């Protein structure tokens, strides 16, 4: 349970300036690990993606994955970093069974990318520039399962089980410089920053970027200093904050916890802390090791990475548009309301809507298809909308037929169902299912006259000016036409015939 006393958030901000620093680990989606040819794969049977290199067996030698280096450089460039002419790997020595080598191969004083910055816009429209100190390459560690403790945690555990499938998976660690001046927005900024990193690496397709799978993980440093003070306060590093909501909550909690201690004249212990999302508090972990304790030294088994300008520029030129800039551009091009646009973004449908618009549909029609009918179908069949067997081009083609009056909305949904069922292109589905709007007005008029004759009371009401009574006749006519008529035209014709 949380035992910490907390100062109210408002009081904390009145007395202290908040300084945050964020370390984000991005797991790359290369086919293989950083230093060996084992598959980089989530969910395999334990210890089946391992070899002498990633198990750290004697005599094995690492070999650097070129694609991982390129992805790392691309991430650096996307964050406005410079790429180091020489980057070197280093051993970070520590004893813990999550890596069997007793060191993690990382980078120390010669990271591949450094000195970048990224502008983060909050929901309020306020924006902050976050300076990136460095982005370096390293390897992920294995996964420990603690057995015997009541809660599956280390306390009370009898032993631990280790799966090294994740050991050696390429990581890029992105470290910010201390961020000042965010004030009460610091927690929101921390989360928005991590979201921006996630969006960027996702748009670049260098990571699967699924936070729930740990593809993007964040350690949040928080320190406070008395307003007006020069010297930075002692910081804590909160680990285990792996959802955007957790990041915001954990930073806010640390602000309040530290503020209480400092306001009582106490001191902050430099340590790692662990966020417990279920109960909403942080608890003390181990005292933070000094960098010296890791006894970093250059990895003697690997040679430096020295990218030339041509290589760097070819990677830079292949970078996709920044996701935040793209969202701005699309929202203004499409003229969506804030709410409509957020709906598209949150449903992860930007690509689909953009491609549908490119194929000729209006932005509003494209949006309605993807966030409406198609989202409904995907939801009903419990699959990702991106897995639906329909292309943006097909959706646009169907919309064109609606616009031309060749399909009613109802018929269009049937065409979509046919395409999803694998009946072929929209034209083929229309042909096969005999879907065609009845434009033969003679047939419509005949059906209307017949329906009116059967319902003389309705006819009487319409003649008295109660036009809403026409609804009953529309239904009958649409039924006679097997739904393949334009309901608006049917209504017009009913009123004409009734009053003729």
């Amino acid at each position: 349970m949380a035992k910490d006393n907390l100062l109210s958030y408002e009081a904390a901000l009145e007395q202290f300036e908040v300084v945050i620093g964020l370390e984000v680990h991005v797991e790359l989606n290369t086919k293989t690990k950083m230093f060996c040819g084992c598959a980089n794969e989530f969910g395999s049977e334990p210890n089946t993606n391992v070899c002498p290199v990633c198990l750290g067996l004697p005599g094995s030698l690492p070999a650097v994955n070129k694609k991982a280096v390129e992805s790392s450089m691309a991430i650096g460039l996307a964050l406005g970093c410079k790429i180091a002419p020489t980057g070197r790997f280093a051993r970070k020595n520590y004893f813990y069974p999550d890596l069997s080598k007793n060191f993690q191969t990382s980078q120390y004083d010669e990271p591949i990318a450094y000195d970048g910055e990224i502008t983060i816009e909050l929901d309020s429209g306020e924006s902050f520039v976050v300076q990136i100190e460095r982005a370096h390459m390293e390897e992920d560690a294995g996964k420990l399962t603690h057995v015997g403790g009541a809660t599956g945690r280390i306390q009370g555990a009898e032993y631990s089980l280790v799966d090294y499938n994740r050991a050696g998976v390429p990581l890029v660690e992105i470290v910010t410089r201390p961020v000042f001046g965010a004030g009460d927005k610091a927690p929101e900024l921390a989360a928005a920053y991590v979201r921006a990193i996630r969006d960027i690496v996702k748009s670049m397709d260098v990571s699967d970027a699924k936070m729930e799978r740990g593809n993007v993980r964040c350690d949040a440093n928080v320190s406070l200093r008395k307003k007006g003070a020069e010297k930075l306060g002692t910081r804590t590093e909160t680990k285990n904050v792996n959802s955007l909501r957790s990041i915001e909550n954990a930073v806010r909690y640390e602000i309040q916890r530290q503020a209480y201690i400092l306001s009582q004249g106490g001191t902050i212990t430099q340590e790692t802390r662990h966020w417990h999302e279920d109960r909403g508090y942080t608890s003390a972990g181990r005292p933070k090791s000094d960098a010296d304790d890791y006894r970093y030294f250059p990895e003697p088994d690997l040679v430096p990475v020295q990218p030339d300008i041509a290589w760097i520029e070819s990677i830079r030129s292949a970078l996709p548009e920044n996701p935040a800039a793209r969202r701005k551009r699309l929202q203004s091009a499409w003229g969506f309301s804030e709410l409509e646009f957020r709906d598209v973004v949150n449903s992860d449908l930007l690509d689909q809507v953009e491609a549908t618009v490119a194929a000729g549909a209006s932005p509003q029609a494209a949006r309605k298809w993807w966030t409406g009918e198609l989202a409904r179908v995907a939801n009903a069949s419990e699959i990702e909308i991106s897995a639906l067997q329909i292309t943006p081009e097909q959706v646009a083609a169907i919309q064109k037929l609606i616009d031309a009056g060749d399909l009613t909305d109802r018929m269009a949904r049937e065409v979509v169902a046919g395409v999803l069922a694998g009946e072929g292109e929209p034209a083929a589905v229309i042909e096969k299912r005999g879907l065609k709007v009845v434009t033969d007005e003679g047939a419509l008029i005949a059906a209307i006259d017949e329906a009116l004759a059967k319902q003389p009371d309705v006819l009487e009401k319409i003649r008295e000016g109660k036009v809403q009574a026409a609804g009953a006749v529309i239904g009958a006519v649409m039924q006679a036409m097997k739904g393949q008529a334009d309901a608006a035209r049917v209504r017009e014709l009913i009123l004409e015939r009734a009053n003729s």
Partner: protein
Amino acid sequence: MSEITPDTVRHLASLARILVTDAEVEKLAGELAVIVDSVAKVNQAVSKDVVATSHPIPMANVFREDVVRPSLSQSQALSAAPDSAEGRFRVAAILDEE
């Protein structure tokens, strides 16, 4: 003579996960001081224009293509493990990360 305190020795021993007795701490403090001084002498011999070497052969950019190669089987991977369970290496629970 560099000053290596008993506390420094204990700290180093704990980083290296080595159990040392008080008597050993005293002895190692003296020995480590000599070693540190000897390394310092090497530093004096190196002029500023000599770049630190981390690899004996001056080469760079040695890469492997991102192509999957066969891994060990689970039983091969675990064959040298002192203990295993449920397809995993079984180790003593160490209080550290949580």
